[in-house]
């Protein structure tokens, strides 16, 4: 079985052409990037605003919880069914898919942004104000840099969801690596299905690895990286996530959203 899969995967004929592996990878990346950019544009400012002002948190937490319960595949079918007749050409498949991806990506990114800002040491925030920083300066110079680990955690978890769901979008007629799984199934060609699965898994791993490298170069080493000599620093490094489990979990497990009363 495995030689079969590898044979299909490394057959040069399967890599070229408009329905070849190379162009499917580009498509997959394009959908994911487009959705992520749109989601970040919406979710990061919103999350920062919630974290900075403390307003709207209750709503955000519950929306995020509800969004997680909605099955993405069902949402995808629903969107295509509803929007397909209203659109023309390629966009008839693409627009509903992108909408679903954006909707899925917003909650984790927003949760990362607001919990990151909320988690900033109140002393640091107080000192920043006391030294004469304006609200914007506090946000830009203190809150955002300190929130970066959690913002990254949210973005990375969103990227993984987007890459996974972009695979599903193939059932609704879009391109991307999911095509190999869907098309392979139609012709009962397991090698093709498995190749698609391997490609999308590797793509997710590589993107996540790249993101972790970006994170390492962007986030200040002062945030939880150094040896924790003081108790406060130790606590901070515990809440700063290092892996790629979703940001929602980080927050839930520290008991801040699930059934803690809203502030």
């Amino acid at each position, binding site marked *: 079985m495995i030689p079969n899969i590898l044979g299909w995967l490394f057959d040069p004929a399967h890599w070229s052409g408009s329905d070849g592996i190379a162009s499917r990878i580009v498509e997959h990346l394009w959908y994911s990037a487009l959705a992520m950019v749109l989601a970040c544009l919406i979710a990061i400012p919103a999350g920062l605003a919630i974290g900075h002002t403390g307003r709207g948190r209750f709503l955000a937490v519950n929306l995020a919880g509800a969004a997680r*319960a909605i099955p993405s*595949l069902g949402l995808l*079918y*629903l969107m295509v*069914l509803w929007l397909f007749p209203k659109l023309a050409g390629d966009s008839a498949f693409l627009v509903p898919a992108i909408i679903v991806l954006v909707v899925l990506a917003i909650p984790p990114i927003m949760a990362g942004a607001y919990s990151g800002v909320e988690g900033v040491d109140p002393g640091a925030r107080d000192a920043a104000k006391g030294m004469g920083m304006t609200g914007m300066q506090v946000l830009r110079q203190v809150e955002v840099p300190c929130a970066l680990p959690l913002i990254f955690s949210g973005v990375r978890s969103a990227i993984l969801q987007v890459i996974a769901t972009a695979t599903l979008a193939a059932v*609704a007629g879009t391109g991307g690596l999911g095509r190999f*799984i869907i098309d392979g199934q139609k012709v009962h060609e397991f090698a093709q299905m498995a190749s698609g699965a391997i490609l999308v898994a590797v793509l997710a791993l590589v993107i996540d690895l790249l993101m972790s490298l970006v994170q390492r170069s962007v986030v200040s080493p002062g945030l939880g990286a150094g040896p924790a000599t003081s108790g406060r620093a130790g606590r901070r490094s515990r809440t700063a996530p290092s892996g790629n489990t979703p940001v929602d979990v980080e927050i*839930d*497990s520290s008991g801040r959203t*699930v059934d803690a009363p809203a502030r």
Partner: protein
Amino acid sequence: MTWFIDHLDLVWTRTLQHAYLAGLPLVIGLLLALPLGWLARRYRPLFVPLIAGFGLLYTIPSLALFVLMPAIIGTQIISPTNVIVGLTLYTLALLVRTVADGLGAVPESVKQSATAMGYTPVKRFFAVDLPLAVPVISAGLRVAAVSNVSIASVATIIGIPQLGLFFSDGFSRDFYDPLIVGIVGCVVLALVFDGVILLLTRAFTPWVRATGSRA
């Protein structure tokens, strides 16, 4: 609505199938995550490989994982086992970390006094550490439950019966009713799972409600 009433039996069958596909991995995952999380806490060098290793599983898209299962464990492509094993792995990815976090959050003073009173390590784990970690573990379990219900519907694509089949039914016939019944069914099932875990947690941690504290 009439479609729903006409197909009540089918909806019920698929709900049970869905609950089985999403729920069994939750139970297996929790039972495996407890010792693994304990190991990660107990033996420092194991912490990073265990947490990072299971975290890595989470990067693999669900459809890819289901499709690759037959190549790894030798099942048929349409076997429900693929979904159960896949979801168990996701549950582990979430819970090993949560269990380790939860055990780590037990106050050192409590652990030390338990040891000083003569608890053996194993007895202390079950009598002190584990109960105190329940609130944190339960929070992780609720996340896993809700996401399992959503991910289980992806098994539609490889043809395994559960609520997700209503999505493709409705889609291929250009008919909203089954599609909406499927989505609502998933959400309701997720809420039921969440509620059950919440009730169990309350039963196991009477001190949380009594004092309003979490640990």
